[in-house]
């Protein structure tokens, strides 16, 4: 799962720097004519090449995105109130979001398997909402924050142990870069 998230993050970041800014334009425009320069042989590589600044930026953003996406917010049973630990993490996430103005974040609300499917769908919404409200009041523009509930349908850990329940009662983040 983590790998997939990471691959996603990398591909999103790559897409940002590889593509032109207007995605739609790229999709409809015909391929550009080949440039003369393209026929030149590539310059010989230096022994210790300097890192491409774009590459460094890409790596920096990727690390920040992975940081946010690995920061799950955990909740008490049947609660959507943010714990002190949850607020600590949200402050870190909020700081990153305030620095990186192009990050847009989807907050997913999840529950453990106890209780009914329908009520858990509502509880997931309330958890996502609690996180979004905190980030908004922390100074992140609400236009960058979206939310969704998956109820009990997408547990992080399978099983019916207390430990699994605790890990599944969470809000999780997905980060995109706005163009």
């Amino acid at each position, binding site marked *: 799962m983590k790998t997939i998230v990471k691959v996603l993050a990398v591909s999103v970041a790559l897409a940002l720097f590889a593509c032109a800014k207007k995605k739609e334009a790229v999709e409809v425009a015909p391929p550009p004519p080949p440039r003369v320069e393209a026929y030149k042989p590539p310059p010989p590589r230096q022994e210790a090449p300097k890192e491409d600044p774009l590459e460094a930026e890409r790596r920096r953003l990727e690390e920040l995105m992975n940081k946010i996406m690995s920061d799950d917010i955990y909740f008490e049973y*049947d609660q959507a109130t943010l714990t002190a630990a949850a607020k600590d993490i949200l402050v870190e996430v909020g700081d990153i979001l305030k620095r990186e103005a192009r990050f847009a974040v989807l907050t997913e609300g999840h529950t453990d398997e*106890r*209780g*009914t*499917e*329908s*009520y858990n*769908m*509502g*509880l997931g*919404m*309330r958890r996502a*909402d*609690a996180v979004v*409200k905190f980030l908004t009041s922390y100074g992140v523009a609400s236009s960058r924050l979206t*939310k*969704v*509930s*998956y*109820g009990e*349908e*997408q547990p992080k850990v399978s099983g019916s142990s207390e430990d699994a329940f605790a890990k599944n009662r969470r809000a999780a983040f997905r980060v995109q870069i706005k163009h």
Partner: protein
Amino acid sequence: MRFSTSVVLFLCALVYAQQDTITMDIAVSTDKTLPIGVINFELDKSDWSKLEELPQKTLARDFELSGRFSVVESEQYNLFKLSQGRAKHYVTGRLSMSSGQARLECKLYATASKEVVKGFVYTSSVEQIRTSLHKCTDNVVHQLWGVKGFASTQLAWVRKINDKKQVVVADYDGFRRKQITSHNSVNFMPAWSPDNSKIYFTSLRNGRPQIFERNLAGTTDKLLFPNLDQTFSPAANPKDGALLFSNVGQSGADIWQGNPQTGSASRLIYTSSIEVSPSWSPHGTAFLFSSDKGGQPQIYMALRDGSDVQRVSFFGKYNESAVWSPDGDRIAYCSMDGGKLNIYTSDIDGNNVQKLTSEGNNEKPTWSPDGMSIAFSSDRSGSSQIYIMRRDGSGATRITNTGENTSPAWSNLTKGGIP
């Protein structure tokens, strides 16, 4: 010590036995059931190897699941056995093949006189004999009770297929199951249209919960209310088909009503709480729903336009998934006690609470169209399976045996006469 070991072994054997047979939980029945004899059918010399179940087995299960009968099984006519079981009537018959068609004769007899009360004859392919037997059950119900039975109805539910939740539809007794949805995401919370031609369900295929409609004659799913953000738990009005459902709200979820044909929708119940699980009254003029505005989910009732909200449930901390009985006098719902969900019924004012289940988690009650039985899902056997019990909680019978099966929704009685 030896005693407890043998008890454990005995329980293990029971659990094991539950894995591959249909089990019946013989709980005490408080409602009166009518004893009926079921005697082995006579099969002619044709090849019946394609017959999936002997007629008496299908009929006996139908009668038990009807919530009206208790079955006295007998291989042949046995006056002592039938009288001892107080069965004043019995059913038996004959299965024969003529020119490639199966001919099923069913006869309802009076036990004491052995006189035929009523006889029914059905001609069908071998594959359709089950359908004929269900019709026979409905005819016997009509003959002895004067009402329409539900043996020819269907259940929709959610089954995990390749680890994904999919909506399936089967005969009400779990046989002849068909997969309805196939999108490789979560598809759940099925509900029937009033005429049984469509299934409404919720899917996460677009990354958020949304209600879809599937015409059972077709193969495509239609997204309903595309302008709404996150919709789930649909319920169709039994008279005009209007959908009640939940949509994401200010904080939590609200109750909305919408027209699946035109796509118009309006918000009915909105608070800063979670409002879910709407369920129509039998005449479609009012509805039940759950709200946690008091802290934890409780059942409320409102008129169709969302006005006159009244709290229904007062006992227990977590009451959810309420469904209105077809007669309108009772509700069934699930309630959490000690971390486990169980099914209860009560009057519509919340009084006369009756607990119907006690083993494992028991969820998502749905009434049979005549209100005599309740289908639900339970994990009492170790995996989630669908069960049907009488409305007093007795006679719980498992109708699915493999995989994970949840969220049953009973189809409606079709209009028209007795088959």
